[in-house]
Structures are given as C-alpha cells and as structure tokens.
C-alpha cells in the first residue's frame, strides 16, 4: 500500500497527466509556431479530447492515490465516480471554451497571445481536476490556488482594457482574501484533529473530545473559501463585476467549470468530513451536535433570492447572466442541502444541463457582442428579424435557464424538486418555485427585446454557418434531454458514489 506505483498513477491520473503534459506542449508550440494561431487552437483541442476520452475510460474506478507516509491508508487524492463526473464536466466545458475562443472577436487582435491563454486555461483545468478528487487539505488548498491564480490572470487577459483589468484586480483581492480566511480555518482544523486528510478527520471527529465551538469556527472559515468559488450569497460580491469585465469566453468558463469544481469540493468536504453514515433510504446522517443542513439551506435560499431579484434590473446581459448564475448556484446548493443520494443525483443532472444551457447562452450573447461591441440589452433589439436563427437559439437557452418544459432546464428543476419533496423540505421547495417564477421575468425580457422591440439602428448581425452550427449543437442536447431524459439520468446515477460511502 505504502508505495507509489507508476502503473497506478497511469491508470487513475490519466486526465491530469494529459493536461499537465499539455501545458508544456502548448508552451513549446507557442515558441515554435507562434504565428500559426490555428495550429495552437488545434493542439489544445487534441489534448483536451484525449483527456476527455481518458476520463471516460476511468469511469467506475475507485481508489486512493498518493499515500502520505507509511502505514497510512488514506491517500491524498481520491478517484471516485463523483470526481470522474466533475472531471468530465470540466474537460468538456473546456473543449467548448476553446471553440468560443476561436470565434471570439475580443481575441482576434494581434495582442492576443493564444499560447499563453491556453497555458493558463490548462493550468485552471488542472486545478479543477485535482480539486474534484482532492482528499487532503494540502492538495485542496494548492489546487484551489492553482485554479484561482490562473483565473485571476485570465480575467484580465485583454491588455489595455480598463474593464478587464478592473475585473482582474477585484477578483484577485476578493479571491486572495477569501482563500486567506479559508487557510486560517484549515490551520485551526489541523490543530484540532492533527491531520490534514479529510478521511482521517472523519474518524477523529467521531470522538467527543473535539471542541465544537472552535470546530464550527474553522468550518465556517473554510466555507468562506468554498462559497467564494461557487459564488453563493453572501460571498458573491465579486461575481457580477468579474463576469462583466472579463472576456466572454473566460466569463462562460468561470460560470460553469470553476463552479462545478467548487461544488465537487463542497460535496466531498461535507460528505467525507461530517457525515457519519448513509442511511438505507439514501439520507446522509450528520454527527450529533453538528447539523449544518439549516446553514446550507439558508445559504442556498439567500443565493437564489438575491441573484434573481438583483438580475431584474440589470441592463447588461452579461451582468444579468452573472446574477442568474448566482441564482443557479443557489438551486444546486439546495440540491446538495437535501443531504441524500437523491439530492446528489439532482445536483449531477442539474449541473450537466446547466453546462449546456449556460455556455450556450453565453455563446449566443458573444455572437451578438462580436458584432455590436457591447452586451447591453438594447443591442438585442430586433434580433428576431435581423438574425432569426441566432434569436431562436438564444430563446431556447433562456427558456431552459428558466426551467420551462420541453427543455433540459425543466428536467434539472424537476429532479431538484423531487429530491426536495423526498426530503420533506416543503418550504425551501416553495421558495425555489417562487424564485423560478421571478427569474422568468428577466429571461423573458431579453426574448421580448429580440422579438417585440424595433431595432434602433440598421446594423446587421451576421453569423457564419460554422458559428450557427456550433450553437445548434448546444441547442440540440437541451431539447433532446428535455423530452428524452432517461439516458442522462441513468448516466448520472452511475456517478453518485463517493469513495468510502
């Protein structure tokens, strides 16, 4: 057990190895073929597809890797179905982001350095992959910082843009502060338990000798770091500013992939650290004196309410989508707050569909912004007549984000409500339902602007065939999963398990 076997690494760490190798390949390629931007895009895509395939191949495997010290049977990384699912989500969204980058107008100028961009993007992805299977507080902290540091730079990637550098500065100040608070919480948790491994912490917390006040304080501090990553209220203040100022592909990436990785960390932290057992009916039991369910429910209700209510009076579509992503973080957090296997399933289904619909919405907004140069809601006026295909696609994404049938967003919400009712959480379910109604207002506002408002100017918004094809490739899964969702749910059911439970 105590030895690291190269074979083990290769069989369980393939996606990470591909991405880490990819960083070097891209850096070298950038030196050799700096002028050939297409070749660099292509190399990045190949590496990502290889990583995705290898993540698919390790489906269903469960193992610890990297043991710290002899006789220690808890590894630093836990490869299990849940982490594999989050890896699939993050790698797949990175593939989509590469396609965003190719078509983005913000990244067309001579100033855009594609090699550096992909190096940072891959750094971020590597952070997410390690975060989703990190079982040790050291790995969790370091990979969280790898993820954050790369994303700070990516947020400010447009050199000479006031908005982009402001987004970057705000991100780095909020991010560094919250990770500093999280680190202090981790140091207290280490002092209380004498170990940094989540699985070992689990066994120590069973004993009644732990001081619950100090423990609660340290967990609260760690939650600040996690809440920052998933942008849950009240740790969300960076989200609208950073999302609005960052280049659009980076915004889309932050809203899906880094959130998914944050949720993976949250789930592992709660389930491994503080759940004593999983009951026969699929409900998770907390330790005595340690009931955080109410805390999670309050956070999620605050997230969805604040996100939806503030989105109502936004005039910038990118900023509106930022608030909507806070609200969606609230829905997903509520699914986890049920603390049952059904809640986990609801979360996995939700995030899979959320990836398609949110990235699709950002892509459609990007196609408009490419031509208009901004994302104000007035830029969308008359889009239904100028470019009916684009307007149709965006409408589908927005309807799906609201959660109206026959779109995938409805299935996500359906499973969320099933899990909530199964857990006898009627009040949260009612509030989530009311929030869905509120969110309808601002999503439909964009659709109304596209079809019912006359355009202020005659500028045409043209899109190439490839761009439209790609957008409809994102529309298709939303419509298909909206009607024929059994395969998706069956697929997600395979990934509910976490190592050790």
């Amino acid at each position, binding site marked *: 057990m105590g030895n690291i076997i190269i074979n083990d690494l290769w069989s369980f760490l393939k996606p990470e190895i591909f991405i880490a190798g990819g960083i070097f390949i891209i850096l070298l390629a950038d030196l050799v073929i700096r002028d050939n931007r297409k070749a660099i895009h292509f190399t990045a895509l190949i590496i990502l597809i290889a990583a995705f395939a290898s993540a698919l191949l390790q489906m269903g495997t469960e193992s610890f890797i990297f043991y710290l010290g002899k006789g220690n049977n808890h590894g630093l990384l836990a490869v299990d179905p849940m982490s594999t699912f989050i890896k699939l989500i993050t790698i797949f969204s990175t593939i989509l982001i590469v396609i965003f980058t190719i078509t983005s107008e913000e990244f067309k100028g001579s100033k855009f350095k594609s090699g550096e961009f992909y190096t940072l993007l891959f750094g971020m992805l590597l952070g997410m992959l390690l975060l989703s299977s990190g079982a040790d507080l*050291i790995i969790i902290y370091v990979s969280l910082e790898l993820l954050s540091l790369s994303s700070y730079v990516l947020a400010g990637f447009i050199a000479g843009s006031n908005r982009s550098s402001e987004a*970057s500065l*705000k991100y780095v100040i909020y991010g560094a502060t919250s990770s*500093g608070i999280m680190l202090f919480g981790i140091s207290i948790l*280490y002092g209380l338990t004498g*170990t940094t491994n989540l699985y070992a912490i689990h066994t120590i917390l069973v004993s009644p000798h732990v001081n619950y006040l100090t423990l609660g304080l340290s967990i609260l501090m760690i939650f600040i770091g996690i809440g920052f990553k998933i942008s849950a209220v009240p740790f969300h203040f960076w989200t609208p500013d950073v999302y609005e100022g960052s280049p659009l592909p980076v915004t889309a990436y932050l809203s899906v992939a880094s959130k998914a990785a944050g949720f993976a960390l949250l789930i592992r932290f709660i389930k491994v650290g503080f759940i004593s057992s999983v009951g026969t009916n699929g409900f998770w039991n907390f330790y005595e004196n340690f009931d955080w369910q109410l805390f999670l429910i309050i956070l999620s209700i605050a997230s969805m309410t604040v996100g939806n209510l*503030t989105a109502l009076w936004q005039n910038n579509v990118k900023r509106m989508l930022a608030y909507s992503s806070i609200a969606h973080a609230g829905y997903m957090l509520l699914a986890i707050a049920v603390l049952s296997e059904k809640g986990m399933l609801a979360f996995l289904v939700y995030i899979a569909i959320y990836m398609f619909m949110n990235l699709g919405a950002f892509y459609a907004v990007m196609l408009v912004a490419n031509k208009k140069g901004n994302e104000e809601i007035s830029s969308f006026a008359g889009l239904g007549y100028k470019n009916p295909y684009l307007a149709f696609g965006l409408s589908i994404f927005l309807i799906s984000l609201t959660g109206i049938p026959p779109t995938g967003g409805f299935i996500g919400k359906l499973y969320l409500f099933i899990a909530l009712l199964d857990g006898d959480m009627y009040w949260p379910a009612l509030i989530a339902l009311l929030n869905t109604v509120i969110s309808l207002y601002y999503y439909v506002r964009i659709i109304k602007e596209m079809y019912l408002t006359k355009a202020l100017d005659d500028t045409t918004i043209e899109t190439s065939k490839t761009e439209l094809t790609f957008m409809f490739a994102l529309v298709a899964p939303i419509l298909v999963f909206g009607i024929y969702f059994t395969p998706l749910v069956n697929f997600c059911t395979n990934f509910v398990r976490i190592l050790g439970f």
Partner: protein
Amino acid sequence: MNSIPIEYYLILSAFMFSIGVTGVLIRRNAIVVFMSIELMLNSANLTLVAFSSYLGNPIGQVFVFFVMTVAAAEAAVGLAIIIAIFRNKLTVNIDEINIFKW
C-alpha cells in the same frame, strides 16, 4: 527547559490575522491590501507550525512550505495585475477603480 505554551503562539497568530483582515477592509491602496493578505497567510503559517510542533506531527510544517510557495505566486500575480491597472488608470487606489457598480 520550559518552552513557550502553545496559547501564546495562537494568540499572536489570531492577532496577526485580525490585523490582516482589518487592513484588507480599511486600507485603500491596492499594494497595502496585498500586504495585509500576506499577513493573513503568514498568521495561518504560524498556527500550522505551532500546532505541528505541539502535536509532534510534521504535516503542518510540510503544509507551510506549500503555503509559502503559493503566497509567492499570489504576490507575483497580484503585483502584475496592479501594474496592468496602473498603466490603464494611473492609480492604485481601489476607491477610484469603480467602473462596475451594482
């Protein structure tokens, strides 16, 4: 030989952490804000080392090495971003960096 009790280290590090948080909240110069963040990280380091020596367990000290590396990387990225914003706006006062509001 009598060693210093662990409480002293913990009080010192809690004090350092509070100074760091206060600095982040009240100072307006981006560079001073970063210095305060470093203070927060270092207070966590002090706690880790103190516990590590108290518990006779080396993991805390290993952790500190990682934290120091991360802190250096964070300072490098932070200063690079401050330089980027200074080139655009000729100020590092975070009250004047306010394009985005509500």
